[in-house]
């Protein structure tokens, strides 16, 4: 049977809330699950969560907007985050940043037109002994040089071509 995406989202949220204790304390884990499966946290998702936790939707929105890893809008399938903090800065961050922009054809804060990559800054990734460091989704790359950028991005592009049918659904 074909279940509409919104209905599926609602059922998922019910399940995640129950699995995380069923109270307000489950909010952030639930938001993280929503984002993982549906690629972003939509107004609809926030409303459903608010209804189920019996809190105002603004409370949910307040949390989503506070944390830099939670997002309302679609970002790239692969989120590239370059550490901008001092140790990585001293290790050559600026040149890596420039090359990332060159390879992707976008600036920091933007997403490529094909929706594959978005480019962001990150604050200290805890890889200060081997900077510059960058994070692609949950994977870390360290001692990155401008010439390595192309290869790093290529491996994710390849992954995307294989998984072309597994793109996140719109809701």
């Amino acid at each position, binding site marked *: 049977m074909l279940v509409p995406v919104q209905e599926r989202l609602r059922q998922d949220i019910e399940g995640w809330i129950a699995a995380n204790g069923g*109270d*307000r*304390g*489950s*909010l*952030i*884990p639930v*938001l*993280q699950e929503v984002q993982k499966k549906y690629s972003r946290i939509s107004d609809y998702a926030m409303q459903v969560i608010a209804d189920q*936790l019996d809190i105002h939707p603004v409370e949910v929105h*307040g*949390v989503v907007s*506070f*944390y*830099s*890893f*939670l997002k309302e809008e679609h970002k790239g399938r692969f989120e590239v985050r370059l550490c*901008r*903090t*001092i*140790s990585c*800065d*001293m290790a050559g961050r600026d040149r890596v940043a420039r090359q990332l922009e060159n390879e992707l054809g976008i600036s920091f804060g933007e997403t490529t037109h094909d929706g594959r990559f978005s480019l962001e800054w*990150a*604050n*200290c*990734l*805890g*890889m*200060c*002994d*081997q*900077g510059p460091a960058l*994070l692609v989704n*949950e*994977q*870390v*790359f*360290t*001692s990155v040089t401008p010439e390595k950028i192309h290869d*790093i991005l290529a491996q994710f592009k390849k992954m995307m071509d294989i998984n072309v049918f597994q793109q996140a659904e719109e809701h």
Partner: protein
Amino acid sequence: MSTMKTITNTLTFSSVEPDAGLKAALSKSRADVIAELNASNLKGRGGAGFPTSVKWNLAAAAKSDKKYVVCNADEGEPGTFKDRLILSDYANLVIEGMTIAGYAIGAKTGIIYLRGEYSYLRGPLTAIIAKRRAANLLGADIMGKSGFAFDIILRMGAGAYVCGEETALIESLEGHRGESRNRPPFPVDTGLMGNPTIVNNVETLAWAACILGKGGDWFKSMGTEKSAGRKLFSVSGDCARPGVYEFPLGITIQELLDAIGAEDVKAVQVGGASGHCVPAGQFQRALSFEDIPTGGSMIVFGQHRDMLDVAINFLDFFVEESCGQCTPCREGNEKLLEGALLLEEGRCSMAYLKDLCALGESMQLASKCGLGQSSANAFLSIVKYFKDEILGRTAVAQAG
């Protein structure tokens, strides 16, 4: 993943007998566990240096049927990565420490709050927790001690530096924005969901496990009188061998620099963005709670580094990471950054610089939590020691 192995010297954690601390703890009364910790003189390794036994004792004395042990693995301080190493290589020791804490204060639940940037540690940590459950080191009647039950939940942060502050971390666990609370009441009596909660740094918990295994006197015999024991330092910046190093507290900055192969050093930022910048003339000072306290972040700056750039980088960081709840921190950091950019352009008068420093001192006094109180430290210390370098800059200096 494409990372290198972090360089270390010989760490005490690498030669500790597994679960000896837990075994010893469970053979003692709860009060004796805390007494052993008290004898060790262990102070919090996150940077604030609060005596661990006092924290545990307060939580143990609080009356409540629900108590929590929280492991603060939201290691966000720029230049700090020792907790990443500990959680990668010695996670069992940390969980052992949490279990001992659970026994000592009478808590049934432990929570590891892991920063979102370390998501790749989630899988390995979940596996270790499951393995310990299977080995009766977590769950009901741990190690056959009837009536002692303790289990651990892993929770992920979502990219907010301020959640490393214990009350903001608790707010986050409760499903709120990571905005710090007024203290008192302290988490030891009014913490998670209003229940007594201890929040300890990853390294503190690992040391607690070592101490219960080897005895408080063993730990106290190292370090200085007021700063007992050894400590992990995260070293980065201009040196030959950046990495994680363990030294007894009380070591001087110069001794540390020699050990990591740092030459021709202009300054060291001790304690990360929220710490202090120490110029070369003061390298004989000691890294200890009585001299320069630190959570372990050491960023080394060579002679060629522009200290104003360093200040601007840190202020950028705080403008981004301030939770925005209180005015001194939210507005103050913006103003300091604006001022630092004026300095960079060579358009800042001495009078205005003095105003900026006065603002920084107000932020230290008037901000609500540790983030705001410490956010001006780096700027103030750089202005204090490098006035020569930051005033009257010209276009040529900027280009260089």
